């Protein structure tokens, strides 16, 4: 499936068969708006403008896809938790509890949006926006198949990481702006954690980039005749650990450590702001899992089945693994986590880079 082609075809069909006749009819009906309608028709027939609209339509489709993904992921994660914990998970709302998320959404929509009296209103409101927007931004360059992508960027990987690493800013100003000791602690922890895991995250990817010879995610996927997971086991390990820390998934959910910091930097958020923070987290989870699939497990490559289905199969296997990890480990302390990042993962990723340079330079892989 080619996202651009489909959207363009759909839009052209709509414009040619519905929009232009209606506008032309309006123009004939009301002579005094004739100049406006003429301009509109010219604009709709203009390719540059059409491309502009197509991008928005694509973004809209990705948005729907992500919304569906989150709904299914949440249900699936809860079911998995239930199984891990000897219970059944949600089962009353809808078939097998499928509609539970809608009930929860209703609840969260109905909550009062509280801004603490002493909070900095601007920063406090800005935080969920920044966190969510940067999470969505990463999706722009994240392909799901050869065609299902918005932007084919040459530096796509860099773009994704750049968008990814903007979130600490949001977390920090949110935690600072809420004017609460717990949020402050959580924000400082979040900033420290994300900054120190950014480095091993990027370093671990360098091996993949060297093997593929490109920062373009499409190229990286195309060049994986052998999965890079097999060629870069250290890189995969470091990347997976660092990505888990980067997206604040348990066991590395230290900025939101609920047993000591209530909810970390999210403590003061209520209602939909809190909901949005969580949406951002799930999108980041999607981005993390998708990157693992794209960089290390051959992306959408696979026999017989369509590319999108292969991608989803691999994605969900990674997600199951992430949920499993979440259910298995206790939470390390922040100092232990930073030690792990700087003293273990960073040297490990450097070793990985050196090894990869050796392999690439010796030309064993052709």
């Amino acid at each position: 499936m080619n996202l651009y082609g489909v959207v363009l075809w759909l839009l052209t069909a709509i414009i040619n068969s519905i929009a232009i006749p209606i506008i032309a009819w309006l123009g004939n009906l009301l002579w005094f708006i004739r100049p406006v309608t003429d301009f509109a028709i010219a604009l709709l027939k203009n390719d540059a403008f059409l491309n502009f609209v197509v991008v928005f339509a694509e973004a809209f489709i990705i948005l729907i896809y992500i919304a569906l993904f989150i709904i299914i992921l949440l249900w699936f994660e809860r079911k998995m938790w239930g199984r891990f914990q000897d219970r059944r998970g949600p089962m009353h709302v809808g078939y097998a509890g499928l509609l539970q998320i809608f009930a929860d959404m209703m609840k969260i929509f109905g909550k009062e949006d509280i801004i603490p009296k002493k909070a900095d209103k601007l920063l406090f409101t800005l935080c969920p926006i920044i966190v969510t927007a940067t999470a969505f931004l990463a999706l722009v360059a994240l392909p799901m198949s050869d065609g299902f992508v918005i932007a084919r960027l040459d530096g796509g990987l860099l773009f994704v990481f750049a968008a990814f690493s903007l979130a600490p800013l949001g977390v920090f100003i949110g935690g600072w702006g809420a004017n609460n000791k717990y949020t402050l602690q959580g924000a400082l922890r979040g900033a420290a954690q994300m900054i120190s895991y950014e480095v091993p995250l990027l370093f671990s990817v360098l091996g993949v980039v060297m093997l593929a010879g490109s920062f373009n995610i499409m190229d990286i996927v195309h060049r994986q005749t052998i999965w890079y997971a097999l060629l870069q086991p250290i890189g995969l390990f470091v990347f997976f650990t660092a990505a888990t820390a980067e997206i604040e998934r348990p066991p590395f959910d230290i900025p939101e450590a609920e047993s000591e910091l209530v909810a970390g930097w999210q403590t003061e958020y209520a209602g939909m702001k809190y909901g949005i923070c969580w949406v951002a987290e799930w999108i980041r989870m999607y981005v993390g899992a998708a990157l693992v699939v794209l960089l290390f497990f051959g992306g959408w490559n696979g026999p017989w089945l369509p590319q999108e289905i292969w991608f989803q199969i691999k994605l969900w296997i990674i997600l199951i693994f992430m949920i499993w990890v979440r259910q298995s480990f206790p939470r390390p302390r922040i100092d232990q986590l930073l030690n792990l990042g700087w003293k273990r993962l960073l040297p490990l990723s450097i070793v990985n880079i050196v090894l990869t340079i050796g392999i690439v330079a010796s030309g064993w892989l052709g």
Partner: protein
Amino acid sequence: MAEMWINMGPQHPATHGLWDLRIKVDGDMILDADPQIGYIHRGIEKLGENRNYTQFIPLADRTGYASPMTWAILYVLTVEELMDIKVPPRATYIRTIAFELQRMASHLLFVYGMAENVGAMWPPLVYAYRERELLLDLFQILTGARFHFNYPRIGGVKWDIPQTFEAQTKKALDVIESKLKEYERMFDESEIFLMRTKGVAVLRKEDAIRMGVTGPTLRACGVKEDLRKSEPYMCYSDFDFGIPTGKNGDLYDRWVVRIAEIRESAKIVRQALDRIPGGAVATKVPAAVVKSVTVLDGETGYEDLCVIMAKVPKVIKPPPGEAYVRVEDSRGESAMYIISDGTERPYRIKIRSPIFCTLSALKYMMRGARVADVPPIMEGIDILLSEVDR
């Protein structure tokens, strides 16, 4: 970051309304801690002065809601000491079984709390509750209640053990013992759990003794002190069991000691079930008839008064004196001190709660720890605020 005081509680998931731990932090390091208690003070000691001796048993249950049975048994032991009552051996055995089952249930609650406070270890948390459920079922068939049992009586127990109890208990113990291995695999082989608990909140042996720390927390420091051995009450001298001790006195040792104690308790229960003697489950307690029945009208004659007096329950009136009894509770050495002035109500009930004394050591454990260590340290002493505040 500047130094600041953080109130961990009463509105905090780790202290959930029961108390307030104020900590002074410098960034992530804890400089000082200041526990504020009294949030669930119910005045149980004072309430006891306004009830007769039998009526206090349910209140004793509520003194420590995570191990009600041990507190109720402690209370009846104290009253029996006061009145010099000999309890039939079968009743003593039943009490011992209930006591040890309660200890197991309480320690499983500790497993739950430790898992929760060390991080999001949800499965072990739910597993510990699952196993505790078996014990609650046992209590249900034994006492009719799952939580606040009101089972021991002055001079014995409420009723005999039901027929299915022995078989079901042994089955439950088998399950729990096999699951304990699972916990040990889950925790002791988890690198992160070891990182979080080893060397954290070390309490030196001398400090622990000096501050009146008792129970598993003291034994984790390496002190082999257990009232069940050193000063056997009920029928503990009949059984063969060990006292698990730790070496370093850190969080991990507290964990290990409690898990080992569940095993030892299971051993005791098995032995008690095998050796339980027959006979009565309660003895006849010298009781007095209430004298202060006021007759309202002058019309009521002497015979009517006799009818009224026969219907009024007999109450226990210990002779004037005092009694102090201490037992090895799930959390340490709990004791009760009762003064009787010869009336049907105690003149004074004083409760010694083990956690109240251990709380004073909390400050020393907290110093030098990090913010993330606070909930595990709290849980490490198996905190129970209802017996602190009383």
